């Protein structure tokens, strides 16, 4: 059963969040969809602790702080978040509205769609090993959903970050055998986890090898062994039936590419009055759009959100007059913000 709202925003990065604010001032209700499990997009996923210096009025702010402040700023508008979900399909309804579906079977019907998807969805990095896609979902997994599925397996884990270490520790008691490989004898992970991993190695419960995975061997998606390339360039054969590579996330456009938005080099062309795509009712703001003179800056996205909201209002409320007001002087805006 689909839920109804005024506007669905695809992407809960800084621009998607600020769009909630601008739409909210115009009394438009919003739902957001994001593949990450928390808001902030690149700001929280890639550089939560890095300072940003070009946000007007904030001489220095980290990605996490900016996200926290935006969340505080949009709180009065009660947007609904669908996190950990990928927008997968967009359909035009006979009444002129849009229905957006996600991979978690969420369905939202809205008057307008705002694509604020930045560089695309964050998806796991796929190691450059020939034929790896044939094994994905059968023997190669980029995430552990149910630990029980890995009981009794001969597991190979690759990577040196927290995910690689955490899953090494969590799966070691269940696995028949477990080998961790990493390209160096050093880790960026939590030191306590690293110590625990080394203890398990000393106790002979798991193996650690400085190596990278060069080739996969098996048939029909069933992994039987891998070829490891050791640090000294020698090769080794390792029998295993499960391979878990943990190399973090990268951005891929994903199903948005199939939304019929006339993409130009993975960007959505928009006008600079409404930031609307060639498909009426679908807007694109932030890093995902392109127009003459486009600058990929957070501040540009904020501006785009404000103009988009004016245009979205006319679609969602065709019979109402839009009155432009300032938050400094309008008591009705201040009431919406909960400060009057």
């Amino acid at each position: 059963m689909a839920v109804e709202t005024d506007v669905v925003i695809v992407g809960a990065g800084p621009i998607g969040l600020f769009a909630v604010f601008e739409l909210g001032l115009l009394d438009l209700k919003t739902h957001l969809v994001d593949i990450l499990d928390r808001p902030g997009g690149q700001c929280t996923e890639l550089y939560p602790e890095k300072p940003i210096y070009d946000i007007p009025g904030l001489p220095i702010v980290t990605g996490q702080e900016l996200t926290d402040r935006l969340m505080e700023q949009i709180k009065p508008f009660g947007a609904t978040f669908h996190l950990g979900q990928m927008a997968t399909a967009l359909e035009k309804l006979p009444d002129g509205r849009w229905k957006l579906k996600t991979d978690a079977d969420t369905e939202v019907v809205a008057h307008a769609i705002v694509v604020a998807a930045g560089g695309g969805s964050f998806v796991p990095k796929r190691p450059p090993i020939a034929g790896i896609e044939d094994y994905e979902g059968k023997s190669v997994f980029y995430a552990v959903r149910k630990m029980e599925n890995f009981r009794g397996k001969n597991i190979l884990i690759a990577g040196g970050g927290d995910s690689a270490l955490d899953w090494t520790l969590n799966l070691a008691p269940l696995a028949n055998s477990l080998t961790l490989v990493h390209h160096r004898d050093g880790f960026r992970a939590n030191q306590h986890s690293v110590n625990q991993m080394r203890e398990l190695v000393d106790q002979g419960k798991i193996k650690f090898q400085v190596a990278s995975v060069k080739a996969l061997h098996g048939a029909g998606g069933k992994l039987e062994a891998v070829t490891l390339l050791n640090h000294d360039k020698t090769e080794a054969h390792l029998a295993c039936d499960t391979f878990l590579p943990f190399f973090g996330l990268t951005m891929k456009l994903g199903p948005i590419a199939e939304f019929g938005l006339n993409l130009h080099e993975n960007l959505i062309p928009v006008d600079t009055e409404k930031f609307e795509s060639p498909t009426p009712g679908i807007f694109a703001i932030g890093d995902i759009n392109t127009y003459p003179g486009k600058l990929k800056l957070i501040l540009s996205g904020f501006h785009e959100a404000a103009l988009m909201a004016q245009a979205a209002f006319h679609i969602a409320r065709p019979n109402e007059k839009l009155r432009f007001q300032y938050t400094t002087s309008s008591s009705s805006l201040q009431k919406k913000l909960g400060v009057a």
Partner: protein
Amino acid sequence: MKIVATDRKGEVHTVEGRDGWSVMEILRDAGLPIAAECGGACACATCHVYVTDGWYEKLKPPSDAEIDMLDMALAVEPNSRLSCQITCAPELDGIKVTVAPE
């Protein structure tokens, strides 16, 4: 200064560097397939290159932050660097890099 960059197809591009700019910025602006998702903050490992022909040893060693971030890169080799962390300078004239696989 010049940067000699080999792309993923093996094509060699000679591009003009600018003192104080990162090698990532020069390669990206020259249209080489450098994703640089984080914009040069040493936070994503998508500007990974191999520094070849003896040039690796001439660079300032990578910072701890870069070494950590290289853990998130794929196909890491002993001469792997993040190109956002290499700053163009006259003494690097002719530096040779190869864009790492995606």
